[in-house]
């Protein structure tokens, strides 16, 4: 190498190796920390029926039986499983689309078009979070009756969209800052209407943020229990979390079926996260660092 000798800190190699070793140790700790509850889920799912209360760390006779029962709806709590799974999916997808649509429209109007009372709207949006979700549960039950949406999937979708949209607007605002306003201006000079600017310029450039928020909204709906439980009462309209909670009331301790159901239920969000993770991290933090 040319130039003045690079000044290295003393014991450079030793420090580096120690550093690597420490990092590896930390990695192992993180692995154990993260995986233990998930391991428990998997382990219970593989137990044979009736052996759930054993003191084994790994089932003596692991079996896929519980998964088979879930998939074939062979247990009385599961006789509508696929229908309920479909309900969860329906709610999740509808939540994603509505959140993205309403959130991006509002954020566009406030952030790009600089609507005069826009700041009022984004602050009001944040106020949604002042009142915790568990507080709103009972009033929601009443108003869904008023809107004639009792026991209807749309009541849950409305609740989820209500809770996801403020965060969506927040993220969109932050992310949109990194998109130069000159692009909008150029389009306007070319005679584009606001609608066209929204569809042709804003949305495509916002893609990472859309993916990030969409994933967030899907996971929010997928994680939700309280509202789904309160607003949906029949087996046909229930979603999987509500069906899962039924198991907790059972006398027969069918925990292996319950965990097998849970694992199947967990697959879509995990798959979606892994499919979109790069876009997600890009979309979540643009602009958050500045200031």
């Amino acid at each position, binding site marked *: 190498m040319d130039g003045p000798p690079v000044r290295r800190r003393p014991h450079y190699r030793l420090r580096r190796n120690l550093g690597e070793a420490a990092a590896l140790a930390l990695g192992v700790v993180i692995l154990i920390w993260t995986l233990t509850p998930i391991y428990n889920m998997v382990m219970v799912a593989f137990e044979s029926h*009736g052996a759930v*209360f054993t*003191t084994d760390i790994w089932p003596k006779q692991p079996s896929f039986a519980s998964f088979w029962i879930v998939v074939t709806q062979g247990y*009385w709590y599961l006789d509508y499983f696929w229908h309920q799974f479909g309900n969860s999916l329906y709610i999740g997808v509808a939540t994603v689309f509505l959140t993205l649509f309403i959130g991006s429209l509002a954020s566009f109007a406030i952030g790009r078009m600089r609507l005069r009372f826009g700041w009022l709207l984004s602050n009001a949006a944040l106020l949604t979070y002042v009142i915790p979700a568990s507080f709103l549960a*009972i009033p929601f*039950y*009443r108003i869904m*009756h008023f809107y004639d949406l*009792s026991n209807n999937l749309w009541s849950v979708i409305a609740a989820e969209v209500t809770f996801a949209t403020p965060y969506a607007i927040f993220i969109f605002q932050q992310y949109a800052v990194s998109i130069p306003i000159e692009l909008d201006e150029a389009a306007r000079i070319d005679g584009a209407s606001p609608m066209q600017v929204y569809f042709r310029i804003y949305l495509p450039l916002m893609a990472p943020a859309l993916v990030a928020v969409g994933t967030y909204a899907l996971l929010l709906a997928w994680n939700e229990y309280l509202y789904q*439980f*309160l607003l949906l*009462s*029949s*087996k046909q309209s229930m979603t999987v979390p*509500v069906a899962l*909670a*039924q198991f*907790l*009331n*059972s*006398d*027969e*301790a069918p925990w292996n079926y319950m965990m097998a159901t849970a694992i199947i239920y967990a697959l879509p969000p995990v798959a979606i996260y892994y499919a979109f993770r790069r876009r997600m991290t890009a979309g979540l933090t643009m602009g958050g660092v500045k200031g």
Partner: protein
Amino acid sequence: MNRLSRRSVLRASLGLAAAGALARPFIANAEAKTASVWWTQGFVPEEDASFRNMVAEYEKASGNKIDYSLIPFGPLMQKIVSAVTTGDVPDVMSHDAGSQNVIPQNAYHDKLVDLTDVVETQKSQYMPTAYEGAQYYNSVTKKRGFYMAPYKLNATPFHIWSSLVEKAGYKLADAPQKWDAFWDFFKPMQKKLRDQGMRGVYSLGLQLTTVGPNDGNVLFHHFLMANGGSGIITKDGQPHLDDPQVKEAVIKTLTYLTTAYKDGYIPPGALSWNDADDNNAFHAKQFVIDLDGTISTEVALIHDKAQYDDIVTLGMPLDNAGKPMPEQILVEGAFVPKGAKNVEVAKDFLKYVIRPEVTDAYLKAGLGRWLPTMPSLVKKDPFWLDPKDPHVKAYTEEGLVNPTVAAFSVYNPGYAEANSQQIWGVAHADVIQHGMTPQAAAESALGKIKTILAKYPVVQS
């Protein structure tokens, strides 16, 4: 000035009108001869199948349609509360713990439809305790009325693993009959079983829980009555919380239960057991004996003959004074809230449900977990006293044949709210976790109950 032209407004309003027109036939048809029913989901699948059969038979016989939802025990309570609070109620509701937590308070506030005409159709059939258990005090009419159509009742037997008793080297027939001594008999079994390698086993599965709705309260009431405290609420609905005999009974009960916990005879998780946790712990052989309502513990194992036969079901022994104890049963049924849209169909359905042959078939198909309210049935139908099934037989004798009394909350609606606040469970926690003496905890609990009862004065006219 703005782009919202008349044309777009016209289009929008046309759309709305069309939607309304399309929706109207659906709404109109829905109200013709249908009743919506919320029913408790069973603890075993046979109960649900049996309910579905009953509904199908009714629909065939009457031509009406029943739109039912089978909802699990815990969630159903929460839904009922939401429904009654917001006024969005179905036509019929039936909860397995309704008589303890829902019906008394709502009858008091005149929120339930009077079901006298329904109950009277079977008046002669009902057991006296059940007939009484259907009546609740209404503060508006200032008298008791029929606000529940009862079709089942439950009693609280003992459930004992005879194999564990034997393994510990004891014989069940040797157990003394007086209440406290009966429980004490099981205490030493714990050590003997642990010495043989059963690491996490306990003797007594007493539900000292603060989680509802019933187990903790039912357990406490049995002990209370065994200690002579049954006068806490008398049949006229008046409370006697200051009665020294009642106070002493409360203190004795708290002392016995909390001492057993502190001495380590009860699984520590019992403080937070929900309605199914104690049964699950029993099935996991975590303890030898418990006192739990219905024979759901046995019925859940009905497909496993060895285990099913292993469990012993026992009725009441003697109380601590050596006298026979009447069993305090819980009478359950369905009720119709005010604001229901199809009261006529609801009542018609309930009249069908309480017919002797219908309840008999329904409850039998539920494997006998709940008992009928009509003594004639057990005489007519050999299922209930069949000596080949010792569980059902012992259970039926306890609940229908031997002397019974109705629950306290039947007479005093405020006591129902005290039940749902789990005041006795909190008293246990006060002693165990916060170091209060049983006397102080008893004072505190009775004081709380007094405050609650003051909100529900029962004035007989």
